[in-house]
């Protein structure tokens, strides 16, 4: 088998890993057999690291130690307004990091967002390795089209920590279009990607032409997703219960977790059937009435009515993006549905009514992005005919100017590579230098936008204000690298900066995290035979521990100390063998401990050493 490469859709809520096998893009199921892995990481109360479905299942009951939607924190600065808006919705603790970045508090340890994301990626890597039966190191990872440089770098760093060589970061809608375009090389179409995932909604318009994928416009609502649909069902279930029994199930963690699980299940089932029964026995109890059960029936029509506003919000975003791209909805050649929530029939109807055509069924909504990434990975690795992926700037770029305002130099949705410049001037007489603060965002106020970097242009000639011309030039390369230079037009003095957006981690921190992750992985890869022996030995340890007080008494009453001392020695040896992973030695110790346990139990059963006998 040649070098392996995987494509990863690292989603806000769920992640998928795929590969191309024998020329066919294929999703890799996880080790539990599911094709989707929740992007959730938790530190359970017993100290166990949980990733995926298990972490998600305890997300409500262990909310403060469960990290959901870490993608929203990737590459964010602590001072960023977007971050502060996001933090209000996070149930776990986020603190300021040492480099003006953010850190997530999990138990006693603080983790950077890339480290948490790396835990999800590690899980996917292990799934892939279990699938292939050999190590995997190369990956293409997707990110939203609106991710800035820092967010993309953070994603790359997460990959590195997970032990992956991230050979490319590609935009999610582009990836979905790649999956759609696979096997259709000659197709020329303007395609819209309607991506309604678990936590975010993105809408993108692309132009596909003979292997060239050009993003023309993108937009979205980062706080709208499938979980909001679940919440509507939860409210619908909880409110009548509250009215009837005076108990708000949403305020009890266990009840809420059950409601959330049931709501999601009901929502999924309603995509295929007209009504579902929701039964949650023993969901609560009162002193007066005893156990309380929640039993309800939800129809598809009711769900559609409950979520009508959410669907309308999606459509408003689409209209806005189409307006910005100056594209008429009816002119689109295809609408691709991405994200599990788009399986909802009402959403498909709404899309049809907006675009005047049925959405494409050519791609699997859950898998298209990962499959596209796998296709891109295979092309890069095997030097097949590479498709050209042209992106746009998802945000406007510019600099801060006097008065605290923001001057855009490159507007959003400009296809990269691109270059633009703007001439500024001094604001004070004999001003010796000018500070160039590079920002991205859409607000007219500098403070509301994201800081990318800053530098000083010094050595300006002494002159009255407004007479020194400073030409600020922005360049964005095909790789999305932003370079900014400032030139004193009269003297030719020039200063420049390449915006090397940091994920928030230093190189040393990345190396350290990668090494810690590798150690953790080694622990996970214990040989199954040893694992079975370890489990058996631990059972025996428990049995001995339970029996020990009786044995101690028995020792004082005739059994004697010798059997206990021998058992103690055997237990110590076995414990050491577990710690040192000595599989063969442990097998022998297990036999010995079993024999000893049988003999000691027999002695106790015969009443040997019992008081008064």
């Amino acid at each position, binding site marked *: 088998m040649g070098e392996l490469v995987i494509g990863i859709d690292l989603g806000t809520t769920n992640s998928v890993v795929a590969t191309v096998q024998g020329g066919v893009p294929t999703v890799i199921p996880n080790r539990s057999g599911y094709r989707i892995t929740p992007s959730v990481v938790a530190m359970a109360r017993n100290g166990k690291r949980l990733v995926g479905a298990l972490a998600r299942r305890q997300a409500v009951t262990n909310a403060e130690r469960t990290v959901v939607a870490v993608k929203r924190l990737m590459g964010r600065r602590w001072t960023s307004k977007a971050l502060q808006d996001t933090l209000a919705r996070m149930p776990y603790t986020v603190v300021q990091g040492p480099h003006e970045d953010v850190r997530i508090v999990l138990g006693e340890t603080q983790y950077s967002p890339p480290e948490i994301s790396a835990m999800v990626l590690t899980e996917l890597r292990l799934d892939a390795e279990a699938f292939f039966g050999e190590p995997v190191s190369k990956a293409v990872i997707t990110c939203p089209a609106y991710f800035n440089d820092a967010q993309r770098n953070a994603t790359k760093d997460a990959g590195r920590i997970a032990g992956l060589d991230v050979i490319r970061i590609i935009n999610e809608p582009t990836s979905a279009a790649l999956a759609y375009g696979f096997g259709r090389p000659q197709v020329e179409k303007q395609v819209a990607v309607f991506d309604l995932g678990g936590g975010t909604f993105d809408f993108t318009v692309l132009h596909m032409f003979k292997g060239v994928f050009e993003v023309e416009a993108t937009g979205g609502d980062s706080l709208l997703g499938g979980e909001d649909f679940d919440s509507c069902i939860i409210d619908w279930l909880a409110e009548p219960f509250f009215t009837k029994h005076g108990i708000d199930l949403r305020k009890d963690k266990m*009840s809420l977790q059950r409601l959330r699980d049931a709501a999601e299940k009901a929502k999924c089932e309603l995509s295929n059937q007209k009504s579902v029964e929701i039964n949650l026995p023993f969901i609560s*109890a009162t002193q007066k009435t005893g156990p309380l059960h929640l039993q309800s029936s939800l129809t598809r029509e009711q769900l559609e009515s409950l979520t009508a506003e959410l669907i309308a919000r999606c459509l408003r975003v689409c209209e806005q993006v189409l307006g910005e791209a100056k594209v008429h909805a009816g002119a689109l050649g295809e609408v691709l549905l991405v994200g599990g929530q788009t399986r909802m029939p009402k959403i498909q109807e709404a899309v049809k009514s907006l675009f005047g055509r049925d959405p494409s069924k050519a791609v699997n909504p859950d898998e298209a992005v990962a499959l596209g990434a796998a296709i891109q990975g295979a092309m890069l690795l095997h030097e097949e005919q590479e498709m050209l992926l042209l992106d746009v700037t998802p945000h406007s770029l510019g600099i801060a100017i006097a008065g605290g305002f923001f001057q855009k130099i490159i507007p959003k949705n400009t296809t990269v590579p691109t270059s633009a410049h703007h001439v500024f001037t001094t604001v004070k007489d004999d001003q010796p230098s000018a500070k160039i603060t590079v920002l991205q965002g859409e607000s007219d106020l500098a403070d509301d936008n994201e800081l990318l970097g800053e530098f000083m242009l010094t050595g300006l000639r002494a002159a009255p204000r407004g007479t020194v011309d400073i030409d600020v030039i922005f360049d964005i390369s095909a790789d999305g690298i932003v370079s900014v230079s400032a030139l004193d037009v009269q003297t030719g003095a020039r200063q420049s900066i390449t915006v090397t957006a940091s994920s928030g981690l230093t190189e040393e921190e990345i190396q350290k995290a990668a090494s810690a992750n590798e150690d953790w992985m080694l622990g996970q890869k214990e040989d199954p035979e040893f694992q079975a022996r370890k489990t058996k030995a631990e059972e025996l340890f428990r049995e001995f521990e339970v029996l020990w007080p009786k044995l101690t008494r028995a020792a004082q009453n005739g059994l004697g100390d010798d059997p206990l001392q021998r058992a103690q020695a055997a237990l110590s040896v076995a414990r050491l063998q577990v710690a040192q992973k000595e599989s063969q030695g442990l097998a022998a110790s297990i036999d010995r401990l079993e024999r000893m346990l049988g003999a000691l139990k027999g002695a106790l059963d015969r009443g040997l050493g019992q008081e008064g006998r």
Partner: protein
Amino acid sequence: MGEGGKFSTLLLEGLDHYRKGRMMEAVRAWEEAYLLEPTNLRAREFLRSALERIHAHMTPNTRAREEKPAVDGTRKHPWLPPVTQPPSRPVADPAAATVVQKKRPPPATGPAPNPWDEGPSVAIPQKEEKNEPGDSVGAWSIHREPMPIEAVAPDDETEVWMRGARELVGLNDFSGALELLTKIVERKPNDPEALQMHELCEHNLTLMYESKLGSMGSRPRMAIPADEVIWLNLDPRAGFVLAQIDGEVSFEDLYAICGLKRLDTARILCQLLEEGVVQVQGQDRAVAKRAMHRS
């Protein structure tokens, strides 16, 4: 129900009575259990504990009454006290009225810590009972009569509890000890001995339950149809734990995802297994029940 099941039920019933102070009923249940499985040490040990407690707490009058020859004049075991028919109505003890009644600690509001108690999770249906002193209803009211002991100050009371806890730990009755220790810790949250013993009891109880569950890697699954769950007697926490059991998650994972204390999760799982509500994959109910009786 097979012999094993009956034995287990009797053991549980006895423990429930024991915890609630109904010593004679406990003795009766454990005696029956003992006769079913004479080699079982647990039944024998429990029986002896109950009898010791009866003797320790009997007032002179009661002791005198109980020391009369039994109606049938038989003793089932050499160390068993003469069994008498309890009086049909409680006999008021004049001595008891003159001393301050040491109130029985109120029933714990949290989960019952005894591994074989009904607890709040999976309950063995119990008759409702009143715990007020002087309750004259019930043939066995002798065991709920006020125990005439000296009045004690609150701090001394914790000392009494602590002595009781030590005794119970000595008897391997960690659940009974835990109940007392919980009360002590409520009053004296920084008492190092109480905290240490509390932890020890929790640890031991957890181990006891886990030894009954078997391998922590086993994946339990529902053993009854989903629509029959409603007919069980569960509390919301047990309902929650049960809702997480799908045949795909292991016991160890259940500890992680349930978010309860390990002891509480272990107890609920143990009782669900024992009630036959769940079973372990690859292990039929009989095997599971045998596992319950191991120890």
